[in-house]
């Protein structure tokens, strides 16, 4: 009698490390990044892949990615949040008002803004759970409500304008400002520029003064979320909730708490993007974050999340955001007629996802 336990099972073919890796949801997105990079290496101006060019497309990618990773977490948990984009505008308003009109220091403004956003997220989540309505329709309502509220609020606090300015002056000199705006590691970069390791302007200042902070936030967030998903009980609950919330609840997962926490996460991610962009731009207006909810979902889906929930990865959304950022900015570096921008964007998107799908199927031998 052979017992297969203590040896390899004869019913498993051996499997290479590459194959095992390719089975992870995010690996498809990585192959998409490679494809897009190759495409632009061939077609785009050389300056796209200089250090400054890379920072240039990574900045919007990072801002989108912070939203996209949160959206991916929520999507894995089986829900949508269409109010992210409006939340960026709304949180921007709150932050602006706290910083400019109330003149509070950042150490108060930022927690208060995040708190307000988290509160709204909790409202979203509670409504979804209480009514049993699809989150699509509930957060859609909040898309409109928050967008409208931002407009009304802005007009109220500025006395009629749709733009609230003076944020940069208000936060100047605050010890927290460097964490939320500008470039990190300026010292390192000017040192590198002095040595001639990176390009510098004639004035001697480095072309790239540092790493824009949003890129750091983006990376940190991708790492934390990946850790949470794969290595903590909470991650297990998120997958379970998204996979089948009924089965999860029956197995003792606190489904409601998980969902509400995820809605709070997306709202806070939106608030973080709002804080970063408002400080960076020095102003906020009623159209901030327009259509970002949409792009965040695209990012998550490119990154391998299933719309039906229960499957996906944060690191996939990370690469999804990079693909999206490269494609939207990259065309400007090429010689193609800019009228073709959208055709191109659509084509590249399709190509990237189809490509990563084909690769994955090849490697894993799925039908």
């Amino acid at each position, binding site marked *: 009698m052979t*017992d*297969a*336990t203590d040896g390899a*099972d004869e*019913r*498993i073919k051996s499997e290479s490390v590459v194959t095992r890796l390719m089975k992870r949801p995010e690996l498809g997105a990585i192959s998409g990044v490679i494809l897009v990079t190759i495409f632009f290496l061939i077609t785009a101006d050389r300056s796209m892949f200089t250090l400054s060019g890379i920072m240039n497309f990574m900045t919007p990618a990072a801002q989108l990615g912070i939203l996209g990773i949160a959206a991916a977490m929520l999507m894995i948990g089986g829900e949508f949040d269409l109010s992210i984009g409006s939340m960026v505008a709304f949180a921007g308003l709150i932050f602006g008002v706290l910083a400019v009109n109330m003149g509070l220091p950042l150490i108060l403004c930022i927690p208060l803004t995040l708190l307000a956003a988290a509160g709204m997220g909790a409202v979203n989540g509670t409504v979804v759970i209480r009514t049993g309505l699809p989150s699509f329709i509930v957060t859609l309502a909040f898309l409109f409500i928050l967008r409208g509220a931002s407009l009304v609020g802005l007009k109220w606090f500025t006395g009629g304008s749709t733009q609230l300015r003076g944020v940069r002056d208000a936060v100047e000199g605050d010890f927290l400002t460097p964490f939320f705006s500008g470039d990190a590691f300026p010292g390192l970069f000017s040192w590198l520029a002095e040595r001639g390791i990176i390009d510098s302007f004639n004035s001697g200042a480095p072309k790239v003064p540092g790493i824009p902070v949003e890129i750091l936030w983006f990376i940190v967030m991708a790492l934390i979320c990946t850790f949470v998903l794969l*290595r*903590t*009980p909470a*991650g*297990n*609950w998120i*997958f*379970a909730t998204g*996979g*089948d919330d*009924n*089965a*999860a*609840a*029956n*197995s*003792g*997962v*606190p489904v409601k708490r998980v969902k509400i926490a995820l809605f709070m996460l997306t709202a806070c991610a939106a608030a973080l993007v709002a804080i970063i962009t408002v400080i960076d731009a020095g102003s906020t207006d009623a159209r901030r974050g327009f259509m970002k909810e949409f792009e965040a979902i695209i990012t998550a889906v490119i990154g391998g999340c299933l719309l039906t929930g*229960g*499957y996906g990865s944060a690191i996939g959304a990370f690469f999804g955001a990079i693909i999206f950022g490269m494609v939207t900015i990259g065309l400007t570096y090429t010689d193609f007629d800019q009228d073709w921008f959208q055709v191109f964007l659509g084509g590249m998107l399709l190509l990237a996802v189809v490509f990563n799908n084909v690769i994955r199927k090849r490697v894993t031998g799925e039908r």
Partner: protein
Amino acid sequence: MSEPIIHMENIKKHFGNVIALNGVTFDVRPGECHCLLGDNGAGKSTFIKTMSGVHKPTAGEIFFEGRPMSFDSPRDAMEAGIATVFQDLAMIPLMSVTRNFFMGREPKKGGIIKRFDIDRANQITMEEMRRMGINLRAPDQAVGALSGGERQTVAIARAVYFGAKVLILDEPTSALGVRQTSNVLATIDRVRNQGIGVVFISHNVRHAMAVGDRFTVLNRGQTLGTAVKGEIDAAQLQDMMAGGQEMAQLEGSLGGTV
């Protein structure tokens, strides 16, 4: 005789205009295996779901260790020490076996930041599955790719592992092979001897007779009666389970019991 762990009194449950339970009384004592039997659609699953916190009864009372109790969620019931194998298994097909096994009660390690101890979880899963007679290829295989019986075994192994005071099994052996079935029956026996109360739902008279101490038969949402082991034989039990209706005549004999 010892005090019942759970006592359910005159439970009723309506779904919209459907009356699924129309007054069922039932209890489980420590160290006994109480079989719940009955025809298809009699209301067995609905009944055990009210016991494990999934449904709130429309009317009736639940006493847990003598105190009136109302579970707001399956999590509450679990924390009170009730583990259930649902008929639909409550498994997430996209997730790995280990993640399903520990879903909702993950073992943790680490200091300030509590991590999900995947290695230990994998090891426990493999071991518990082996005890049930299934050698998994790998604990990170998705449950969706398991065979029906393998999947059912995961659900049983999980419930047994976490069942502290009461273990509820809703047709646990329906998809199991002979070897796995005998393992499950042996497990029920072992668990019972540890003083845990077992509720066992089955359509197989022979399985029920093999491990049951008491037998309650439901019919069309109502209790037909409870019998104690030894007072009743297989044929009588089978008649009651069929709701008293006649059975089809088969050319080849089934030796009395199906």
